[in-house]
């Protein structure tokens, strides 16, 4: 330890990191506080930074006045199905792109990367037309299929990074022992890179859980709405009701927050592996 930190440096560091932590967490704190206030308290001066009386009316209203339980179920269903299928499919593609050399490999990777750069909105109109021709508009399956397609490129690139960290010898040994390639992949490699797979799963789960524009475009009926679509509905109506909105926001954020808290370390690994090495 040669360049030891000075006291002043340590204080500056502490203040900076502390300030940023407060800035980062404050919006979460504020939305929770808002969601626990009754309508009268939300619009009352002076603003209360900790509600003197806590009310769960906003949460109750979401389930009694709106059909928030259905929206939550729809989101949960879409996100779980998407993440499961995407992780499986991307596992195969990521494995190939990490282990094999072939002529069109650059083109395949390029085709995946390009999808991340083109504004998705260029595809919204035609996608709607196509889905309506296929009879998939306003169906849960249709939405999931589209979510799978948009999540594959990123998940594949992420999993490719995790495969690259595992020595070839592992599956070669298994294959010499008589395992098929797919057997070696699932029996030997998958257990070793489970954290990376979980991170990929969570990443595509959270992205589907949060997705707005596709679901607004494809889902019309109230019983098929996902949470973001429902929130969007809260806005476009003439006035925003901030109490229920805050409660809905809290319910939307909590599951993803918990998942990210557990997987953040591996998500960071997955994101940075490719960028720093390549």
């Amino acid at each position, binding site marked *: 330890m040669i360049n030891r930190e000075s006291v002043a440096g340590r204080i500056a560091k502490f203040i900076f990191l502390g300030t940023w932590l407060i800035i980062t*967490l404050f919006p979460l704190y504020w*939305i929770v506080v808002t969601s626990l206030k009754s309508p009268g308290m939300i619009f009352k001066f002076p603003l209360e930074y900790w509600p003197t009386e806590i009310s769960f009316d906003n949460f109750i209203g979401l389930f009694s006045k709106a059909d928030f339980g259905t929206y939550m179920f729809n989101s949960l269903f879409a996100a779980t199905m998407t993440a499961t299928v995407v992780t499986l499919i991307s596992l195969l593609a990521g*494995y*190939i792109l990490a282990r*094999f050399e072939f002529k069109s490999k650059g083109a395949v990777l390029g085709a995946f990367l390009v999808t991340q750069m083109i504004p998705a909105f260029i595809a*919204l109109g035609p996608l709607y037309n196509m889905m309506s021709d296929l009879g998939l508009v306003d169906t849960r399956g249709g939405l999931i299929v589209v979510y799978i397609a948009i999540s594959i490129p990123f998940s594949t690139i992420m999993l490719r990074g995790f495969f690259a960290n595992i020595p070839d010898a592992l599956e070669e040994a298994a294959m010499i022992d008589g395992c098929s390639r797919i057997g070696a992949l699932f029996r030997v490699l998958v257990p070793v890179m489970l954290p990376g797979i979980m991170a990929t799963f969570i990443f595509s789960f959270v992205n589907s859980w949060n997705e707005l524009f596709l679901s607004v475009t494809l889902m019309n009926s109230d019983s098929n709405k996902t949470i973001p679509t429902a929130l969007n509905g809260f806005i476009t109506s003439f006035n925003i009701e901030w109490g229920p909105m805050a409660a809905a926001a809290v319910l939307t954020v909590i599951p993803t927050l918990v998942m990210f808290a557990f997987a953040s370390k591996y998500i960071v690994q997955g994101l940075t592996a490719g*960028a*720093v090495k390549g």
Partner: protein
Amino acid sequence: MSIATRSVERGDSSITVGPPDHNNRSRKRRQFTRRRAWTILGFLAPSAIFVTIFTYYPMLSGSQMAFRNWNLNDLSNTDWVGFNNFIEIFANADFWGVLGNTVLWVVGSLIPQFLIGFALALWLRRRFFLRGVYQAFIFFPWAVSGFLIGILFRWMFNGEFGVINDLLLKTGLIETPIPWLSDPHFAMTAIIIANVWYGVTFFAIMILAALQSVPDDLFESSAIDGAGKIRTLFSITIPYIRATLALTVLLRIIWIFNFPDIIYGMTGGGPAGQTHIVTTFMIDLTQQGNYGQASAVGLIVVLVLLVFSTFYLMAMREKKEQ
């Protein structure tokens, strides 16, 4: 490989002089490469099928709409109109304002994101008590969708009951409430603040990973040479991780350019269209049913980003060679 060539090869083998097992081995290798090709194809097929049908097909078919008179309100005439949509967009004064906003949005978000992210990364490089927990906490913005972030900040920046005005008034920094979202300049500031809040984490993570790739002896030898902290930063650390920094910045620029979610949730492009960037403008056109012009805007975005990325990467390469 066709049957004809295979039989010729087999025919050839009968007249080959040489050790018999050589021939056998090459057949085995052919068999092996064929199996290898099928493995590659089979493993890539599911993702290729999904991406082709549900991403590439709509994107390409969306691109051709840019050259057609495609309006949902009147589908009786969807003729090819050449570059008409582009001409109309360039003639639209709103579009140039939107382009200006987009540049402001990208540059105004990127610079603070980069600086704060860099500072965080530098200070997170060294282990300290609860560093892991700290990192998990500042990860929080990433769990929230851009749209929801827009809504959270819309509420906090509310002119009457917003907590930000309240805090500013309480600390005496302002004397009258700021009409954050109903004044164009303040609204632009507000959406950029929200985007900075969201984007710092990404930079912090990427730069931290890059910093951790710098060998420790590099820092130590520079300390022995008596270089100060600031000089070490500029003459050792930054040059060492320059490539990662450059790539991260490029990815971010592309991404912020294409990122309408926060604006959509926060101002919807308002007041009076003053906070539109190209992608929210595109959403607006789509919602009006004007698919042709929306696609044209999309193609302009792709073109601008492509040209920009090319020049950017060329400039980076030149600098490296110097």
